[in-house]
C-alpha cells in the first residue's frame, strides 16, 4: 500500500481526478445560464419547444468533446503510467506522438460530436432554399491559418532534417500532424455544412445554424491548437537554441488560449451569410 503513495502514483491520481472531473462536467446538464450565454454569443433566441432540443444537442456535443479530450490526456500521460508499470521503458513513450494526444483527442472529439448530433425527421419535410457555405459558420482566417501551418512546418522540417543530429527524424512528425489537423478541420466543417436541416420553422433553423457555427468553431479551435503544437515542435527542433526555443515552447500555451477564444467567440450566421452573399 505504501508504494502507491509515491510521487508517480500521486501524479496518476491527479490525472484520474482531472479525467473524471472532465467527463462528469461534460455530461452535466446545460444550465440556464450556460444556455443563455450560448444564445447571446451566437445571436439566437432559444425559447419554448426548441429549448429542450438545444440543451440536449449542446450537452451531447460537450460530453463527446470533453470525454475525447480526457482520453487524449490519458494517452498523453503514457510516460506517467509507464513510470509505475515499467520505469525502464517510460522513456520509450515520451515522444511527440504521445505528447500531442490531448490536442488530437480534442480535435477528433469535436469532429465526432458533429457526426453524433441526434436528429429526428418529421413527417412534413421542409427545407429552406438558403445555400449553406462553410464560411457561414467559421471565419476563413482560421482555416487559412491551419492550412498555412502545413507548408510552414514542411519548410521547418526540411531545414531541421538537414541538421546532422538525432532529432532530424522527429521533425517530420510536425508536418504530418499539421496535415492531419487540416484534414480534420476540412472533414469536420464539411460535416457541419452537409448535415441535413431536419427542423421546421425560422426559429429552429436559426438555432440549428448556431449549433453548426458552435461545432465549426470547436473543430477549428482544436485544429488550431493541434497545428500550433506540431508546428512549434518542429520549429523547436529546427531552431533549438536558447531563447528562440523558449519562445517557441510557450506557443502551445498561446494556442490553448486561441482554442478557448475560438470556442467562445461571438458569431452570427445570418451576418456572415450576408457578408459573402
Amino acid at each position, binding site marked *: 500500500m505504501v508504494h502507491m503513495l509515491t510521487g508517480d502514483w500521486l501524479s496518476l491520481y491527479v490525472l484520474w481526478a482531472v479525467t473524471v472531473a472532465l467527463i462528469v462536467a461534460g455530461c452535466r446538464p446545460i444550465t440556464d445560464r450556460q444556455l443563455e450565454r450560448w444564445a447571446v454569443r451566437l445571436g439566437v433566441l432559444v425559447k419554448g419547444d426548441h429549448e429542450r432540443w438545444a440543451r440536449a444537442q449542446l450537452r451531447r456535443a460537450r460530453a463527446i468533446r470533453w470525454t475525447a479530450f480526457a482520453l487524449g490526456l490519458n494517452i498523453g500521460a503514457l510516460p506517467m503510467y509507464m513510470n509505475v508499470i515499467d520505469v525502464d521503458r517510460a522513456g520509450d513513450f515520451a515522444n511527440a506522438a504521445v505528447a500531442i494526444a490531448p490536442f488530437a483527442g480534442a480535435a477528433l472529439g469535436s469532429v465526432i460530436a458533429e457526426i453524433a448530433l441526434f436528429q429526428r425527421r418529421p413527417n412534413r419535410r421542409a*427545407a429552406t432554399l438558403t445555400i449553406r457555405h462553410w464560411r457561414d459558420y467559421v471565419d476563413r482566417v482560421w482555416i487559412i491559418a491551419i492550412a498555412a501551418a502545413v507548408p510552414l512546418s514542411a519548410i521547418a522540417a526540411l531545414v531541421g532534417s538537414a541538421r546532422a543530429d538525432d532529432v532530424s527524424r522527429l521533425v517530420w512528425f510536425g508536418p504530418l500532424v499539421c496535415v492531419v489537423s487540416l484534414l480534420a478541420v476540412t472533414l469536420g466543417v464539411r460535416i457541419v455544412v452537409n448535415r441535413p436541416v*431536419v427542423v421546421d420553422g*425560422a426559429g429552429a433553423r436559426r438555432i440549428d445554424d448556431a449549433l453548426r457555427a458552435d461545432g465549426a468553431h470547436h473543430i477549428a479551435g482544436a485544429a488550431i491548437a493541434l497545428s500550433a503544437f506540431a508546428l512549434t515542435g518542429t520549429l523547436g527542433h529546427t531552431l533549438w537554441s536558447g531563447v528562440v526555443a523558449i519562445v517557441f515552447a510557450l506557443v502551445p500555451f498561446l494556442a490553448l488560449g486561441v482554442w478557448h477564444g475560438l470556442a467562445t467567440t461571438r458569431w452570427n450566421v445570418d451576418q456572415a451569410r450576408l457578408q459573402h452573399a
Partner: protein
Amino acid sequence: MTVTVAIEIDSPTPPFEQLRQQLDGQIRAGHLLPGDRLPTVRQLSGDLGIAKNTVVRAYRALERDGLVTGERRRGTIVAERIPDATQREAEITAAARQYVRDVRAQGGSVNEAVAAVQVAFNTVDGDPA
C-alpha cells in the same frame, strides 16, 4: 425573406412533382429572383430526406420549362428571362371570351358552354385530358 419548400410524404403527389410545383411557384411569384442560386442537389435532398435523383428530376423539369439554368461551375440558377405566364393566361382568356361570344350568339347557356368545353378537352386530339 427565407424561401422554403416542403414535402408531404403522405401526399399522393410524387415528391418530385411537389418540389417542382413549389419551386415553379416561388420563381413565378418573384420570391426567387433571376440569378439566384438554388441549393445543391446534395443539400436539398439531405434536408428534405429524399433521393438525390428526385431533386435532379425536379431541377431538370424546371430547366425544361425555362425557369432555371444548370451551370457546371455555379450550380442551378434562376433564369434571367422567366417565360411569361401572364401572356399565356391572356391568350387563354381572349380565346375564352371569343368562345363565350359564339355560344351566346347561338343562344347557349353557361352550363352548356362548360359541358361543351369538357367534352372538347376529352376528345380533341393533342389536348391534355
